[in-house]
């Protein structure tokens, strides 16, 4: 028994001065001012069949919107963006542009400095959202009704496009607020000033969309009922399940699911109320791991270490995201996996790990172990789709690798049910991909409903 057991584990709130919280959680990429936007817009070559547009999952006409900024028409620019991606404002903040549009930009090839497409997109969309102009109107009402499950990027995008085509939409969401992970998941410094809710408000201003919060499929509503009462159904439920560590001690206090911790952080009115360990270990290699690590560090954790069982190249988080973590003082350790969590009095105090190696593509432990002290351990090894709410009420939807199987129009095995976003198989688990799914599905639904 250690003598100072009372101070271990060290988990506290209010580790920082008040002003440090607002400083640490301010906009990670401050917006461009008008001058900066003009300078940057002038760098775009207005490429033919632009590679950036090809790389954008929602196919935003990037050269056109940048030209519109340069021509002093930010409103027109925003419209160009929103026509393809109604969540263009959030995407401008959260897209890993370094692996999407900006990677494809010819100026990346020319001089290693792509046009700052993300920041320009934000400049244009912010302009329109601030102005509050209405740019979308609804087509003649069709009298058709569509149910959307999940008010995340996929569901919202689908709802907006359907409303535009004149259909009425009811969106059901289990949570209190709309926005999905935009509201509950994205790192706080990527979406400041309650942007997710402002964007939802903007999106709803088209009319014809009702959001029913606090309605969970499988509880207050069933798929069978929705299919009966609506002309079509879209499922954009995201991933409700958390992958388990399958390591001893997973149930100890202080072993936390990164996604729900981030959700609490995002909902906190006062960040100083969020408790954080002095020594933090994050297990995982994706965006969630990075976000959990960086945000706990910014909350005042003294030592934050990410453990990933493979190498740098295999990490799902882009190189840019990894660097972001490192410049924020996070240590990333590769080729290490957790073996067991060590507790005292039911609380985690350390983690025992094992070095790993990859032999002929398969991963195994080397037998060599190390133990790291930890006051908090975050699980960020991925989420999974929970299919239960879909089932029971009627025919089952076909799944593929544990997620909903869809065709290229995002239609499921049930003819009147479409799906998109993280909950479908083969997706990329990106906000922008979810927006595209919603849009594609809405177009397909519209085709069927207006046939």
């Amino acid at each position: 028994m250690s003598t100072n057991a009372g101070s271990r584990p060290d988990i506290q709130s209010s580790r920082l001065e008040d002003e440090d919280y607002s400083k640490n959680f301010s906009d990670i990429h401050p917006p461009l001012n008008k001058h900066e936007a003009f300078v940057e817009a002038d760098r775009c070559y207005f490429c033919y069949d632009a590679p950036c547009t090809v790389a954008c999952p929602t196919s935003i006409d990037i050269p056109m919107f940048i030209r519109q900024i340069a021509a002093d028409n930010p409103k027109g620019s925003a419209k160009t963006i929103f026509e393809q991606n109604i969540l263009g404002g959030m995407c401008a903040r959260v897209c890993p542009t370094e692996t999407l549009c900006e990677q494809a930009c010819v100026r990346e090839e020319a001089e290693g400095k792509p046009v700052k497409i993300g920041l320009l997109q934000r400049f244009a969309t912010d302009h329109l959202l601030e102005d509050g102009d209405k740019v979308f109107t609804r087509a003649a009402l069709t009298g058709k009704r569509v149910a959307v499950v999940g008010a995340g990027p996929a569901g919202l995008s689908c709802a907006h496009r359907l409303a535009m085509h004149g259909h009425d939409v009811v969106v059901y969401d289990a949570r209190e607020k709309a926005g999905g992970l935009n509201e509950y998941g994205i790192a706080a410094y990527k979406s400041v000033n309650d942007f997710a809710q402002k964007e939802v408000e903007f999106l709803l201003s088209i009319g014809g969309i009702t959001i029913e919060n606090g309605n969970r499929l499988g509880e207050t509503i069933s798929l069978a009922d929705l299919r009966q009462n609506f002309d079509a159904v879209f499922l954009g439920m995201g991933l409700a399940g958390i992958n388990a560590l399958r390591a001893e001690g997973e149930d100890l206090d202080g072993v936390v699911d990164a996604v729900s911790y981030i959700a609490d952080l995002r909902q906190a009115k006062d960040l100083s109320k969020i408790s954080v360990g002095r020594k933090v270990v994050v297990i995982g290699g994706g965006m969630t791991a990075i976000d959990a690590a960086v945000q706990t560090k910014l909350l005042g954790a003294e030592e934050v270490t990410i453990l990933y069982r493979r190498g740098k190249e295999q990490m799902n988080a882009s190189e840019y995201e990894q660097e972001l973590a490192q410049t924020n003082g996070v240590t990333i350790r590769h080729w290490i996996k957790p073996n067991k969590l060590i507790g005292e009095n039911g609380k985690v105090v350390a983690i025992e790990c094992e070095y790993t190696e990859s032999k002929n593509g398969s991963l195994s432990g080397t037998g060599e172990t190390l133990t790291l002290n930890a006051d908090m351990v975050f699980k960020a090894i991925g989420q999974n789709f929970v299919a239960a709410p879909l089932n029971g009420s009627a025919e089952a939807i076909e799944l593929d690798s544990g997620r909903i199987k869809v065709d290229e129009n995002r239609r499921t095995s049930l003819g009147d049910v479409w799906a998109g976003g993280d909950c479908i198989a083969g997706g990329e688990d990106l906000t922008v991909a979810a927006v595209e799914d919603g849009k594609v599905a809405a177009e397909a639904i519209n085709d069927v409903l207006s046939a």
Partner: protein
Amino acid sequence: MADISCNFLGIKSPNPYWLASAPPTDKEYNVVRAFEAGWGGVVWKTLGEGDPVVNVNGPRYGAIHGPDRRLLGLNNIELITDRSLETNLEEITRVKKNWPDRALIVSLMVPCEEQSWIDILKRVEETGCDGVELNFGCPHGMSERGMGAAVGQVPEYVEMVTRWCKTHSDLPVIVKLTPNISDIRQSARAAHRGGADAVSLINTINSIVSVDLDAMAPNPTVDGKGTHGGYCGPAVKPIALSMVSEIARDPETHGLPISGIGGVTTWKDAAEFMALGSGSVQVCTAAMTYGFKIIEELNAGLSNWMDEQGYDKLDDFVGRAVPNVTDWQYLNLNYIAKAKIDQDACIKCGRCHIACEDTSHQAITSMVDGVRKFEVIDDECVGCNLCVSVCPVEGCITMEQMTEGSDPRTNKPIDHDYANWTTHPNNPSAVKAAE
């Protein structure tokens, strides 16, 4: 090191760069700063007679910008000097005395009456200046009063006033021409007939630089109204170069010294003016944009290039490009060139493709074997140079002469003989070759 000193009409300056008559040369203070910075000479801001003119008290300038607000064209509605003649003459005298190795020309504009010119010339001569420049170019304000471009646009007046000046003064006379005419040769010939020692050109071009769409008035807007101004800066260089070349190759004015003006911004611009026959160059907008320090780059660039080319002195290349300026009808129609894209330099922006595809000859691919690739299709390429002009990567597309085989576009064998339009069979007035 090459000798860049300049001798124009016997007026010597350590380099061929003079500041053109404009705000940079309006006061002793500015001119001394310019000389300290290293400028070869100045043409003092235009002097007039009687009470000084007044300028507007609102904005005088408007501009067009390229990327990153790089100033490409400047427009102004300023008049000639608004300071008293006495003050100007006193300062000119002092500056010339203190800076004997620099060229100091005085620009003049007085009403079209002989006595006015006699009077001002007498006073200017007393300053010890090196020569006078007759401002027949100012396109705004002064022209409404029968001066500036109002004189420059009438060859008879140009000739008459030039002759007065030559008759009543021994100073070298440079006649500054307005570009706001249809044939610059008429003005130059008139100056020549009047006895001008040289011409300088161009003065500014009539322009409305932009319209304020809120005020619904031209820029610069003075209390809700605007007027046309004079345009200068990099955007006018091509017009100025063409006019200079016209005068240089006109048999009537060939050999008449020229001081080239219009958009000179770097040493290269200056060298181009000189290659087309300018013995000196004058600069205004570039100095007004970047300050006097640019003279260092202008000097160093010119001398460096001359060293590389083996030119010892300015005269070695002044006018060298003049014989190569010709009429369209004498261009060799048997010269065949094709665009060629350097695939390593290409960044695949596709601008060449869409320019050629939409607006020209459909001679550049966008895909080859299913991959994004931009390649010239020799069967279609007419060698027009549009793709070169729009490519953002310098040197990425080049025009290559075909010297062997036949042109895949026309299937005609390459003809090594020179042949032009005057003898072309499609020309109804072709000179028939003797049979």
